[in-house]
């Protein structure tokens, strides 16, 4: 231990490219960086098991890409903008739809994935909601295992440095404010690390776990966005948090919130309220259950709030009319998932609720994943703008792999021209002091009840439908919560201590939650995933709010805002776009 500090002297490691996160974006980035420049030293920093944590792994339905000559990237682009209610950064959305088919080629022919085939032996594409063409590539109904399993295999070929179970804490600058590296903790040993890097790619995934009913993996606690926020990066569209319409209800079991995939609705599943009414007719008579996620989630929520839900607060999804055998054949993973909690998708309606799923908001990037900070790239769910106000099912894994690949290309291009810099010791110390504080305190709350408080508050006040009063309440409560999080005490050793992890997760979650509540209060209209009961209509002028951390440091720093008009660089809104 260094004198007077609660942690040992950090080990310093140097690398050319540090990739934070090992999901779809992170591993595609490694693949591209090392394919372009095999001489680079690339280091993966992964809080969980490499390739086996995060959310690409959890992808069920599939991957949108234009492969059929009767389809077109223009059509995919239009679907993406209409789904996003034209709030999208059109340069990013255009990049997404153009690169997606090429990344599918690469996943199949280089990475070794094998997606389901049509009878003629060509890649099968299934129907997903909100799309004018059946373009969703998949492997059964558990596509993420194939994509991440094969990307993980590629790491044995490429052999990057893998720092597994190493949690990145903060980006650190040199004496004059240039990006120099990051601080981290090896969670197995509990010891600190300083990683110096020429280029850092942040690809940790989103933050939707901060809601009572939530779909993502444990690690998705906004770590990447919070890290960038503390480093002064700008974020956009933070109010745009997607609720997937069909999350499982399993009481207090951890399974609650797990998604039943969108392909069910694509294949004809119907939604009913507890009165047996097919309620989508009142919300979107034309598209019914195949309407976009924002519309279907809001409809389900409205039914539940109006007292037409099941006793455990859900609605019912029913696909049993296809026949048990057919449902078992097409959706084996989903059937198994429901049977495990004592229900049976193949034979009867299943109780579901909207579940917090995906964060459209995130760090401002350009089409090459560059940010305002030289040397810092952001890819995947940590970035904002691609999906606008609502993400289409099947565009998520497309985003993580397309932009992960681009980040890898960019990293390979700029790393040789960026020097290794010396992290400012005071920044390193401040970061480690914050991280180790919960272990050093003798008294204070455990993190778990505070996590529960956050999830309940976000669900009630910053959830599927919002209003000014609830958002003001949330804003106040989040500040109180931030102060409480700053007092957490975790017992036990520093080695493999997931209670300590949760304390650090929570600090990041509250940081991101404050920006969500703040942006949600700013947007006085209803658009996409952001629904205001006090402002039910959409404005004709499309604007977005860019937020940045204000001067004051500590848990409740000020939030600076700048309002911008959406640029229609490729396509103006259609008459029927919102």
């Amino acid at each position, binding site marked *: 231990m260094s004198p007077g500090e609660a942690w040992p002297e950090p080990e310093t490691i140097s690398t050319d490219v540090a990739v934070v996160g090992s999901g779809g974006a992170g591993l595609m980035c490694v693949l591209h960086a090392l394919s372009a420049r095999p001489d680079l030293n690339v280091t993966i920093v992964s809080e969980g098991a490499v390739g086996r944590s995060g959310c690409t792994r959890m992808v069920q339905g599939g991957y949108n890409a234009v492969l059929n000559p009767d389809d077109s990237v223009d059509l995919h682009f239009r679907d993406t903008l209409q789904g996003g209610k034209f709030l999208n950064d059109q340069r990013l959305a255009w990049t997404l739809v153009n690169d997606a088919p090429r990344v599918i080629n690469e996943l199949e*022919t*280089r990475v070794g994935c094998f997606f389901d*085939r049509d009878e003629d*032996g060509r890649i099968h594409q299934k129907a997903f909601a909100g799309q004018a063409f059946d373009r969703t590539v998949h492997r059964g109904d558990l596509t993420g295992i194939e994509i991440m399993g*094969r990307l993980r*295999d590629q790491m044995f070929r490429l052999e990057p440095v893998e720092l597994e179970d190493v949690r990145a804490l903060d980006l650190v600058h040199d004496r004059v404010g240039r990006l120099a590296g990051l601080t981290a903790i090896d969670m197995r040993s509990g010891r600190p690390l300083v990683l110096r890097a020429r280029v850092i790619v942040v690809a940790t995934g989103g933050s939707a776990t901060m809601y009572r009913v939530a779909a993502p993996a*444990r690690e998705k606690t906004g770590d990447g966005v919070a890290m960038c926020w503390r480093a002064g990066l700008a974020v956009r569209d933070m109010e745009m948090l997607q609720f997937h319409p069909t999350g499982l209800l399993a009481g207090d079991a951890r399974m609650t919130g797990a998604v039943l995939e969108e392909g069910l609705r694509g294949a004809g599943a119907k939604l009913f309220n507890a009165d047996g009414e097919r309620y989508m007719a009142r919300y979107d008579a034309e598209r019914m259950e195949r309407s976009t996620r924002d519309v279907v989630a809001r409809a389900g929520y409205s039914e539940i709030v109006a007292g037409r839900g099941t006793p455990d607060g859900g609605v019912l999804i029913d696909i049993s009319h296809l026949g048990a055998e057919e449902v078992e054949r097409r959706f084996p993973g989903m059937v198994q998932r429901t049977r495990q909690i004592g229900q049976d998708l193949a034979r009867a309606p299943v109780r579901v609720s909207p579940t917090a799923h995906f964060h459209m908001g995130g760090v401002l990037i350009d089409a090459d994943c560059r940010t305002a900070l030289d040397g810092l790239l952001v890819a995947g769910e940590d970035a904002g703008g691609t999906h606008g106000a609502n993400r289409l099912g099947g565009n998520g894994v497309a985003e993580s792999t397309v932009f992960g690949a681009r980040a890898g290309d960019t990293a390979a291009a700029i790393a040789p021209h960026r020097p290794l810099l010396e992290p400012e010791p005071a920044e390193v110390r401040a970061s480690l002091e914050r991280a180790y504080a919960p272990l050093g305190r003798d008294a204070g709350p455990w993190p778990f009840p505070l996590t529960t408080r956050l999830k309940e508050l976000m669900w009630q006040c910053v959830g599927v439908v919002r209003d000014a009063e609830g958002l003001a309440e949330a804003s106040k409560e989040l500040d109180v919560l931030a102060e409480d999080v700053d007092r957490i005490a975790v*017992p036990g050793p520093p080695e493999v201590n997931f209670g300590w992890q949760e304390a650090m997760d929570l600090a990041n979650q509250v940081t991101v939650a404050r920006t969500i509540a703040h942006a949600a209060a700013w947007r006085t209209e209803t658009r996409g995933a952001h629904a205001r009961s006090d402002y039910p209509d959409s404005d004709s002028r499309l604007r977005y709010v860019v937020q940045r951390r204000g001067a004051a440091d500590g848990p409740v720093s000020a939030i600076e805002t700048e309002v911008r008009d959406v640029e229609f660089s490729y396509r103006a809104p259609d008459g029927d776009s919102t």
Partner: protein
Amino acid sequence: MRNRHRKAGDELRVSVTRSDAAAADEFTVPRIRPMMVLDALLAIQRTHDPAIGFRYSCRVGMCGTCTVRVDGRSVLACQTEIPERAEHIRIDPLAGLPVVRDLVVDTAPFWQAWKSITPYLVPDEDAAGMDATPAVIKPDSAERERIDPSLDCIGCAACFSSCGIASARRDFIGPAALNRAMVLVADSRDTAAAHRLDVVATDSGVDRCHYIYGCSAACPKGLDPAQAIRRLRKWRFDESR
């Protein structure tokens, strides 16, 4: 017990192997329904010992990181329901892998074996990349009928832990890696079949298997690594495949 008036079935006793001999290793948690083994571990973490060591990520049987032994069987904690009448369960770390702390193991030996069979596709370089066209392969082809049922391995190591040979670390590549080898050898897009067949024919390969079928019984994804091993044994001597 805090509440003596609770009926049997309202609580569950859980014994957990701990690394620190002084740490508590038996806990009583409230019974919820449905309740997976993961829920019991989370209840221990939330109400008794925040620092108890166990790993999980997705909680829907896709990441393969929460594997433990429950009453001796190697299973995914998130996918294993606690039987309705159970009053007590015992949870141990996986067999054959070094314990890092409590139920968290170092999976490096498992991945070392995985790596030894060249687990990635080795394509014809001219047919690989962003501008290459995916192969046309019919779903009912002999190739896919072999591969598809063996494809969804999540690398959870339940088979490794349940295999008497692999978990005893008796120099055996193990069921998961051999299953992966079979998948790639059968894949017409791959060009490294001969190399892999050489690897599986070494002393650490298929001949170490004693056909106890622990692997196929343990696989949470319903794969059949024992069958893959049988196929590889046959293919060693059969050029036609």
